[in-house]
């Protein structure tokens, strides 16, 4: 159970779980701010882009493990 | 034969189920548009499951162990087989058959055009025939070289035992027959008459056959995406030890660049066709002006695929030709690295030049200048390909076999195609030449020159490897010359009629162009006849030709270092690579292949 497994990278099970929740919380906060900005600002196109990019990066890195592409999943 | 029957039966059942669902849930009739869509989707799934996906995959999804169906001899080619060599051969034969069919259609078109009035067809039928010729030939050019030689050769050339995803590879191939059947069956439900470009609003307003066109071409696009994905993954991950990026045979690079394109931009074609389907069936208004849509949207989305598609067709052709030129000149490929950079930049720049097809469309004026500049920029990397070709030929020891002869012809034709392309890239001249027979002639020089001639050259070059027998050299040369000469006589006059007021996609034209058109039609018929020689040569030689040695051309690349045809897993023992693939005449160059236990097999 404590072994480092290739599937999700280093850290214990609990570490991984905590990391996931932190990511999700960040995403939720970003979404709410994004919504607040969009509702209150006229023509928010430029302002919304950073939110999209940040959320996309969080998902790709922490949820989809894009960095494993390089190593093939072995850490 | 059993998998084919099984596939056909479950395909028919699938079609019935789909059409039935559509009939029961909507107001569509049993052969209505929505029924055609659902019927095709379910029919395709049924066919795929019947042909072998159930055994290869489906069993796994319900927790059973997958079954592999083994077969020997010719039966291998009629079933779901994951061997990349079998799939390559399946593609080659399928595409040659489609090519010959579409060629017959072209002969019918030239017969109609031999004189100004409506002779053979009504204008309506002509449009349908023309659309059929267009889309079938596009399919041949897209999947001919990349599907056939890409699958057959890429793993062999990089020293792999198969593709990265053999089952997906087989899936990609077996999507092709239903596509062909759907396209050919479209006349039963009213045919499609909007050309292969399928511009709306015409393609939203015309007969039900357009729906079959759309779903079939989307399926074909999916097949070509899967094929591209496979080749990219294979080249990145499956190279043998020592096969570094700078030692890849040039065809592999060409297939790689084309596959990146086919993997990405093909989705735009699918998207544009889906939008048409939505407009027709779901009542959306992407292209319908009354609801606020615009037909120009289609042109952007469509050409974002269809211009790069030209490079999907031509890049592998360039690879085949450079490969042949180096081996038959017995010289290293000139400026190898520059060619690689050119392939990648052709793919890159080629994806951002689409709007030069739209100079007359009424798009925003400030787009016209940049797109002209980008389009002309493509001529620079393309020029490097010609430099590599003539630079390799220069002072070589030219062994004039059929493949080299066809490579010469390829250079000549693609040169004309490229130069006339500049006239179409130029804003001013394009205003005049757009949608005329000048474009028709240019396009045929580019695609027949760039892709089909390479397909023929490659077919002869690798024929001994695939079949284990030699083709007839004399017949091959007669065919090549015949095809080439009458191709010029057919299409050079068409440049002229284009300049003189003949627009494309017409069954009738002004009387003063009758003479030249009649000449072109006669030449086209004679050109068409040359394929009798081609087919006879290949069929006869495959059965009765002299047995081919492992390496009849004494070439250096890996595929020639194994027996003809290659053993089941390509290499008797895991290969590793030493020298470069083109080190002809380099003193002390190690052989390309280092360790194969029994090279000749």
């Amino acid at each position, binding site marked *: 159970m404590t072994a480092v497994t290739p599937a999700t990278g280093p850290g214990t099970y609990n570490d991984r779980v905590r990391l996931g929740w932190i990511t999700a919380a960040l995403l939720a906060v970003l979404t709410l701010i994004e919504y607040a900005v969009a509702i209150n600002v006229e023509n928010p196109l430029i302002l919304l882009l950073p939110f999209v990019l940040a959320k996309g990066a969080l998902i790709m890195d922490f949820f989809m493990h894009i960095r494993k592409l390089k190593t093939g999943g072995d850490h | 034969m059993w998998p084919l029957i099984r596939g056909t039966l479950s395909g028919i059942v699938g079609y019935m189920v789909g059409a039935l669902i559509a009939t029961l849930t909507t107001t569509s009739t049993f052969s209505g548009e929505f029924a055609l869509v659902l019927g095709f989707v379910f029919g395709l799934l049924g066919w795929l499951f019947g042909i072998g996906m159930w055994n290869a995959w489906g069993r796994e999804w319900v927790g059973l162990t997958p079954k592999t169906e083994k077969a020997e001899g010719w039966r291998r080619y009629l079933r779901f087989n994951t061997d990349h060599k079998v799939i390559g051969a399946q593609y080659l034969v399928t595409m040659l058959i489609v090519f010959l069919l579409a060629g017959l259609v072209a002969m019918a078109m030239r017969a109609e055009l031999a004189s100004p009035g409506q002779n053979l067809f009504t204008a309506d039928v002509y449009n349908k025939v023309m659309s059929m010729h267009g889309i079938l030939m596009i399919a041949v050019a897209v999947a001919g070289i990349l599907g056939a030689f890409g699958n057959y050769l890429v793993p062999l050339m990089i020293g792999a035992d198969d593709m990265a995803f053999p089952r997906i590879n087989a899936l990609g191939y077996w999507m092709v027959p239903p596509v062909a059947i759907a396209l050919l069956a479209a006349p039963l439900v009213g045919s499609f008459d909007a050309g292969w470009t399928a511009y709306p609003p015409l393609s939203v307003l015309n007969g039900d056959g357009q729906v079959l066109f759309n779903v079939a071409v989307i399926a074909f696009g999916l097949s070509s995406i899967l094929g591209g994905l496979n080749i990219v993954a294979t080249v990145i991950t499956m190279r043998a030890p020592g096969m570094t990026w700078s030692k890849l045979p040039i065809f592999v690079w060409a297939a790689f660049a084309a596959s990146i394109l086919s993997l990405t931009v093909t989705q735009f074609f699918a998207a544009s066709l889906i939008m048409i389907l939505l407009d027709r069936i779901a009542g959306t208004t992407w292209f319908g002006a009354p609801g606020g849509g615009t037909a120009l949207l289609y042109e952007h989305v469509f050409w974002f695929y269809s211009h790069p598609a030209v490079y999907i067709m031509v890049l592998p052709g360039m690879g085949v030709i450079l490969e042949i030129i180096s081996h038959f000149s017995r010289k290293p490929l000139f400026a190898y690295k520059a060619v690689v950079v050119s392939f990648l930049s052709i793919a890159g720049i080629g994806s951002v030049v689409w709007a030069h097809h739209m100079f007359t469309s009424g798009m925003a004026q400030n787009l016209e200048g940049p797109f002209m500049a980008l389009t002309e920029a493509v001529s620079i990397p393309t020029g490097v390909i010609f430099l590599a070709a003539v630079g390799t030929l220069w002072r070589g020891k030219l062994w004039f076999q059929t493949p080299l002869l066809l490579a010469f012809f390829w250079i000549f034709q693609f*040169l004309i195609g490229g130069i006339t392309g500049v006239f179409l890239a130029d804003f001013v001249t394009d205003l005049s030449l757009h949608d005329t027979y000048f474009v028709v002639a240019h396009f045929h020089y580019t695609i027949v020159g760039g892709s089909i001639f390479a397909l023929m050259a490659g077919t002869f070059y690798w024929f001994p490897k695939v079949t284990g027998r030699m083709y007839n050299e004399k017949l091959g040369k007669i065919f090549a010359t015949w095809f080439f000469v009458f191709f010029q006589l057919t299409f050079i006059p068409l440049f002229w009629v284009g300049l003189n007021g003949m627009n494309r996609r017409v069954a009738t034209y002004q009387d003063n162009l009758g003479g030249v058109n009649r000449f072109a039609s006669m030449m086209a018929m004679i050109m068409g006849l040359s394929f009798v020689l081609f087919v006879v040569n290949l069929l006869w030689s495959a059965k009765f030709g002299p047995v081919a040695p492992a390496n009849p051309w004494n070439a250096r690349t890996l595929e020639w270092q194994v027996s003809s045809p290659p053993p089941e897993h390509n290499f008797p023992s895991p290969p590793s690579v030493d020298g470069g693939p083109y080190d002809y005449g380099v003193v002390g160059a190690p052989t390309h292949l280092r360790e194969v236990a029994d090279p000749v097999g």
Partner: protein
Amino acid sequence: MKKDIVNATLLWIVLSILGWILVLNWNIFPPALAREARIVDDAFNLLTVLAVPVFTFVVAILIYAAFRFRSPGGLEDGPPIQDTGRILTAWLVVTIALAGGILINPGFVGMSEVRGEGGADVVIGVTGQRWSWTISYPNGVDVTSYTGELVLPVDQRIQFDITSLDPDVIHSFWIPAFRIKKDAVPGRITQMFITPTETGTFAEDPNVRVQCAELCGQGHAQMSMKVRVVEQAEFDAYLDEILAEGG
């Protein structure tokens, strides 16, 4: 080796001269009745003249190689010429210069010439529909291609406001004798400017006609209309005539 280069160069020069003689003496265009048509033809000719040496360079090497560098066997290796980079550089310089050159002229120069500037002397409306053209003259009279013809005044800058019926399909408004064309798109008005410089009729040359250039279905090939370019006075008379007839 030197001999090969000299011979091939000679062949290239000879072929180029022959090519230039051919393209400069053979007028392949139909009559050009408008200012824009001349611009297009000049651009075409310039591109052809520039294309000749490029074409003959490759063809000269192909021909020379085919006769001079034959070898019967396939076993003997050629000299392992490794590109030093100089040839490649020279080649790139030449192609970039050529591409840049044609981008400026006829590219951008031609583009600004053909667009022209300033307003128009006459505004004529064009509506495409399956499968006919409707011309709206400045005096408010509509003429369709079923019954009438398109009459234009010479030496006037004419603005065509082109559209397609809504809903209908895309057409393209093209007069081959004027060369340039513009699409008729449903729901949009596209503009094309033409200055006819010579009079002419369909009877004299079939290229003096309107032709639909974008596939629009069954009647696409026959979607044409006779054109007559006339003197200003005659144009005015024509306008009066159609007004009297039933406008």
